[in-house]
């Protein structure tokens, strides 16, 4: 088969799997698991073959026009360069791992068929985004991911948190998608085509009339999808979904779509210096703010969610300094280790029966209950904290190296200010990242107190997947930085000495300071008992997690926060802790700026509808009724009365006619 055929099959197979899963969900439950896992695995294999065949050479381009549109044509087009080929492999790998993991995680879940089908559909949409060579087709995948995210975040729709989170995720990303759509139209109008290759040609030829406007409109959509400030607030709340969904959608793939989109169209953004500076500011605010917030979260998955936002900030930072190779490198390594972190967190939540770090820090020997999760999560956290030789180190250093490169004025791609901004914020975030990674590790695994409950070993499918993902987190970074430039733009991704030393140094400082703070505070833990565990610890992992999410707010007073004096984050952040725990009050600001005005407007509309419009409607009904009632009073039933009235009328008419005729 040709590379093009294989590439078409890659998104198609999970789509067919999803369709079959939705159709057969009730009638043939035995086929659901194979239908969920096998197409995804097959598309992983095909994506790997496509990647090998493409091999970082000339991009594979294929297009077919379905029907003439009358203006700018929309084509089913493929554009597979090194970025697309490798990102597709990552998507296939993470999606396969998540599907396998889900068979264990949602073992007894009654809604597993629709869940698995939606995950497949989501995978298909992401692969479509990755491979698409036409911006409109890309948008289709983009929006399908949005709706799948909505359904999957709301999987535990019995809990109010999940319902609110799914609506919030949908609305906030849509808030970005509307400008994104307008930006795509503007871009296509200026470039004369929706094809990525033609758009890039037009940009290279200076054919864009409004580069800044287009870039900023597109950035709004990217900020929504990739959870960048100020549209990131949906991502922490989206943790109300099942853990595999968080791993797939909210760590490894969908949120990476925005970064990937910018990487594909980087020349469009580079055409506008203003857009690059906006991107840099966005990245800097996102990564430092989210790292501070991550240090204060109590829910283990919310820590990881804020960490995802921060790592996405690194990627946008790399894009802001014009190095898409570094951005996609970090996307790949982050996709692997963050999926691992989430899946391991799912195992921990199942074993501990709670998602609260405060409660876990009061359980002894939790690490002995879940040894696989303990070791793999250690690897992934080291990768997250960018400790050599784990993969996160190399990708993060390539980002910092690119920023330093720009800051010292070696390139014309990007403004030097952007370079400094990304570099300083990146180093600060490296410190904070190491701090919250250490805090997570210590609180989750080195708790002291009563023995952690023993529910037996975790399902094999869940543990195997962790080790599969641990391999790229552990090893790929060191191997990849030499190979990847051939696949990408050819720019060197080797860590530079200065940033490596400084970056690793601040990471070590962050880790050691957190350890010291933990030693200081951990004595308090015994004095303040805390904790609530799931009511059905022997149920499957999904049930335990749903109960943990639902019980967090009643048990601790807030979904993100626990009043735990033994938390080292509280000591490190000091007075900032209260604000960081609630995400720096951004939700409150949005609530004041958008939610309350909309609700007030809704109240007004309801008043106008109920009191004004409906009064007219009721009047239209009531007036004829009243008139009819008056007329009906004349109906006595006596025929002679009617005839008398007829006579009287006739007489009146005759008199009138006579008067008119005689002219009186």
């Amino acid at each position: 088969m040709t590379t093009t055929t294989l590439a078409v099959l890659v998104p198609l197979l999970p789509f067919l799997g999803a369709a079959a899963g939705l159709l057969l969900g009730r009638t043939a439950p035995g086929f659901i698991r194979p239908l969920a896992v096998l197409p995804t695995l097959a598309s992983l294999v095909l994506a790997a073959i496509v990647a090998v065949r493409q091999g970082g050479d000339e991009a594979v381009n294929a297009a077919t026009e379905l029907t003439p549109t009358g203006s700018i044509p929309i084509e089913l087009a493929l554009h597979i360069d090194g970025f697309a080929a490798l990102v597709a492999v990552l998507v296939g790998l993470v999606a396969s791992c998540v599907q396998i993991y889900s068979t264990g995680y949602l073992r007894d879940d009654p809604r597993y068929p629709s869940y698995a089908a939606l995950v497949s559909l989501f995978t298909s949409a992401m692969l479509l985004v990755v491979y698409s060579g036409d911006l409109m087709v890309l948008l289709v995948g983009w929006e399908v991911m949005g709706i799948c995210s909505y359904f999957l975040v709301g999987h535990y729709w019995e809990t109010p948190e999940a319902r609110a989170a799914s609506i919030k995720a949908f609305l906030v990303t849509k808030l970005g998608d509307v400008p994104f759509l307008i930006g795509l139209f503007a871009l296509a109008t200026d470039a004369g085509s929706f094809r990525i290759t033609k758009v890039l040609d037009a940009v290279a030829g200076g054919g864009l009339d409004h580069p800044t406007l287009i870039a900023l409109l597109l950035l709004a959509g990217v900020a929504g999808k990739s959870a960048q400030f100020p549209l990131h607030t949906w991502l922490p709340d989206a943790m109300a979904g099942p853990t595999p969904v968080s791993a797939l959608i909210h760590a490894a793939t969908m949120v990476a779509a925005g970064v990937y989109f910018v990487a594909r169209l980087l020349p469009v953004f580079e055409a506008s210096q203003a857009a690059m500076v906006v991107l840099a500011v966005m990245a800097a605010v996102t990564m430092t703010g989210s790292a501070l917030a991550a240090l204060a979260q109590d829910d283990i998955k919310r820590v990881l969610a804020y960490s995802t936002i921060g790592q996405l900030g690194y990627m946008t930072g790399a894009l802001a300094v014009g190095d898409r190779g570094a951005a996609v490198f970090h996307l790949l390594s982050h996709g692997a280790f963050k999926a691992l972190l989430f899946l391991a967190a799912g195992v921990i939540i199942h074993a501990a029966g709670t998602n609260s770090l405060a409660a876990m820090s009061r359980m002894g020997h939790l690490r002995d209950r879940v040894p696989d999760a303990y070791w793999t999560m250690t690897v992934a956290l080291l990768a997250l904290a960018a400790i050599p030789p784990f993969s996160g180190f190399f990708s993060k250093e390539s980002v910092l190296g690119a920023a330093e490169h720009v800051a010292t004025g070696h390139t014309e791609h990007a403004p030097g200010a952007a370079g400094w901004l990304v570099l300083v914020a990146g180093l600060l975030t490296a410190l904070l990242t190491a701090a919250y990674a250490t805090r997570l590790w210590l609180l989750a695994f080195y708790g002291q107190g009563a023995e952690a409950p023993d529910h037996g070993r975790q399902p094999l499918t869940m543990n195997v997947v962790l080790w599969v993902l641990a391999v790229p987190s552990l090893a790929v970074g060191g191997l990849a930085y030499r190979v990847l430039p051939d696949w990408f733009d050819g720019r060197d991704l080797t860590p530079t000495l200065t940033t490596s030393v400084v970056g690793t140094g601040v990471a070590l400082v962050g880790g050691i300071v957190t350890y010291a703070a933990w030693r200081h505070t951990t004595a308090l833990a015994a004095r303040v008992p805390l904790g609530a565990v799931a009511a059905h610890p022997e149920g499957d992992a999904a049930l335990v997690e749903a109960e943990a999410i639902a019980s967090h707010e009643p048990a601790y007073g807030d979904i993100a926060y626990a009043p735990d004096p033994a938390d080292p984050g509280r000591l490190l952040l000091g007075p900032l802790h209260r604000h960081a725990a609630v995400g720096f009050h951004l939700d409150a600001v949005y609530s004041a700026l958008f939610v309350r005005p909309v609700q007030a407007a809704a109240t007004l509309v309801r008043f106008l509808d109920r009191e004004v419009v409906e009064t007219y409607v009721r009047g239209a009904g009531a007036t004829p009724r009243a008139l009819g009632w008056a007329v009906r009073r004349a109906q006595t039933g006596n025929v002679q009365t009617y005839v008398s009235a007829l006579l009287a009328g006739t007489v009146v008419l005759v008199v009138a006619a006579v008067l008119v005729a005689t002219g009186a």
Partner: protein
Amino acid sequence: MHLAYPAVLSALLFCTGLYGVLARRNAILVLMSVELMLNAVNLNLVAFDVWLSRTAEETLHSGQALTLFTIAIAAAEIGIGLAIVLAVYRNRGTSDIDKLRDTAEGHEPEGADSDGDATAAEKAEATA
């Protein structure tokens, strides 16, 4: 004969008929009064036809022809009318127009009339 005599006579007949229609309570008498009114009209038609044909060059005597129609229709009408009255009487035990008020607003279908038992008895008798 002067036109005034038949015209006044027909006016008297018509007024008598009108009074009967409006004032009599028995349905048969009301029908008879309707006949009086119709015949007043017939008299008018004939009288005016004669009056007009005196001056006309040639005439079709359409007034007299129309009278024949009216008589025929009146015969049919009284036949149907009497049949209805008979049916009503058999059904209700009365042909009193004041009591046939089923089309009144707020009318109760059965049993709400003043003389329920009497009506039922008469009805049973009439149908027997």
